[in-house]
């Protein structure tokens, strides 16, 4: 499935750039899942995360001509747009920061049996900006250069942000344990 998607990308990209919305939808289809996971962790709210992905998709569609590079650039570019949409969502709803800081359990999870780990609690205490590099590196398992492009920084700076945020979770981590 992924192979087929990758093969379809060059032509889909050309058609999308020419204004074909269906082609663009085909392009970003495999990116919706990681984009949602990124947004859900940044916003701590699944509904707001889906809104952010939808808004991010529309903005990406409108800005598609600004995309530079090959089809491989699409994922970090799209994720950076969704991350920015999350930042804007938090600004728009600054009054509900307290509510958004309360992490919702995923559908199906039993809140009475859910035992929150120390790591989970520490993760919740991080700011969304601190969670972002961790999500990209650990949860979405992106290579370092894609993390850097999503964050809009150099690979060295991305590495530094990942390590710094990871150390906020566990202070005795060494770089070798993170990378």
């Amino acid at each position: 499935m992924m192979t087929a998607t990758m093969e379809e990308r060059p032509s889909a990209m050309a058609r999308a750039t020419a204004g074909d919305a269906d082609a663009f939808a085909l392009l970003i289809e495999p990116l919706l899942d990681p984009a949602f996971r990124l947004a859900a962790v940044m916003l701590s709210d699944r509904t707001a995360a889906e809104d952010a992905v939808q808004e991010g998709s529309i903005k990406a569609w409108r800005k598609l001509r600004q995309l530079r590079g090959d089809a491989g650039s699409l994922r970090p570019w799209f994720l950076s747009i969704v991350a920015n949409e999350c930042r804007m969502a938090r600004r728009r709803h600054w009054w509900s920061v307290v509510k958004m800081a309360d992490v919702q359990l995923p559908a199906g999870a039993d809140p009475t049996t859910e035992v929150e780990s120390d790591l989970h609690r520490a993760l919740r205490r991080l700011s969304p900006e601190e969670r972002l590099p961790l999500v990209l590196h650990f949860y979405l398992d992106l290579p370092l250069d894609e993390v850097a492009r999503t964050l809009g920084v150099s690979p060295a700076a991305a590495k530094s942000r990942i390590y710094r945020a990871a150390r906020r979770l566990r202070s005795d981590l060494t770089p070798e344990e993170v990378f």
Partner: protein
Amino acid sequence: MTNESFRRDLNRAFEAMSGPPSPALSARVRSALSEPAPARPGPSFWIAGLAAALIAAIVIGVFVVSNFNRHLTSNVPGALPSASPVQTPPDSNLPAFVCGSSAPIGSQNAPLSAYIDAVRTGTHSGYDRITIEFQNGLPSSVDLRLQGNSTFTNSPRGDNVTLAGSAGLLVVIKGADEHTAYIGATDFKTNYPVLLEARQMEDFEGTVQWGLGLSKSACYRMFTLASPQRLVIDVQAG
């Protein structure tokens, strides 16, 4: 905890926060994409936009220059009834020193997190100064709390730290962080006439605190300056 178990536990925590998207997300995005046509502004729109931006820049420039002095004064904490103004040189544009409590100042257009990228100290005739510089805009609020000793709480650890001096001033900055863009010292032992030491007391969850160790209980003033955006705190000597 090994590297692998750290990764596994971290991903488990992420999974608890997120989980997969709803099956309807894909259809929802497709539907949203089919509604608006992509904006493809032509050259005339582009030129008009550039012209509008230039006009806006000129208007803002004139506004900033004409209001520069007033801007300084508007951030003076001396507006509080409890604050007692202290005489300042008549030719100075700087706000008056206040003794006692003061109202917090803040920016209405604060970024989500204002990144501190420099902290400097200096001594001048009649006052000592600490300047905190921000990379991307002023923070949402800054509060100063004068205290009768130089012992502060190191947050979030909770232990007490005693700085040089016999009095203190706590600087509480909300909506800021000091670990993204700042790589400088977090403890300045200055030994100026009144500001003896400045030390970071918190950089956690969007709150940055600096404790200032003072040689005596002193009056102070706080104001902001632009280009670059910075917070200036002067502690009166003499």
